[in-house]
């Protein structure tokens, strides 16, 4: 691991698929707090928001997404913390 960090460009590069921001790729998906079905893809089963570095969203859309999820939580469309059996 340490060696990998030291020389990331030298061989031993794991193949990783390039992540693309889903909202930049397809402008037809709107980020709306009233649409929990779409927002649900960006939370874990427990209801935590998936970080942009994992989901691949760009910073701009990740910010909007976070705000939308938090709004949806406020009005009980999405859970703050869900039990696993809930889903």
């Amino acid at each position: 691991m340490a060696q990998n960090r030291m020389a990331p460009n030298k061989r031993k590069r794991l193949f990783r698929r390039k992540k693309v921001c889903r909202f930049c790729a397809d402008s037809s998906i709107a980020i709306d707090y009233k649409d929990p079905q779409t927002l649900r893809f960006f939370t874990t089963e427990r209801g935590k928001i998936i970080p942009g570095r994992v989901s691949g969203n760009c910073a701009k859309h990740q910010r909007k997404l976070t705000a939308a999820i938090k709004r949806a939580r406020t009005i009980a469309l999405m859970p703050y913390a869900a039990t696993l059996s809930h889903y």
Partner: protein
Amino acid sequence: MRRYETLYILHPELSEEQRQPLFDKLTGLMSADHGMLVKLDEWGNRKLAYEIKKQTRGYYVLMEFCGDGPLVKEIERNMRLDDRILKYLTVLTDKAVDAEAAKAEIETAKAETQAAKEEKSSSEPTEQGADDEKGDSESTKAGETLVNDTEASENTPETSDQEEPENGPKQNGAE
């Protein structure tokens, strides 16, 4: 004038007759404060993501209106006082609205709701007609949801891929 939308949750056990006076009261507040109601959309009873005031279900209503700050304050004050409203959320959707444009929109919205009502009432006696008309009006909606579904199915494999690396930090945290 600004445009806002308020999404609020009513007590699930209210009947339609009990809900109506509440809507009248809210629209009354709007006209008293130089605002106007653009759209009133009743989502109906939905399951809440968490309990509010011991209730697991709630009747969602989305209210779009034009007005200014003091109006929002007044509406929210009334909502806080009212036991029938479990929770509310007001969001600013447009910072500057033409009064005339808003009026035009109100009229189109009214016409739409009236048309929908007429469609329902006219289609009730003849069952075939009802099915056709409903199919027409709902075809666009169905199309939209279908699009969402396909997107969803495309998305799911990716998210499942992405959740794997996410387990790493969690486990580390547990240690």
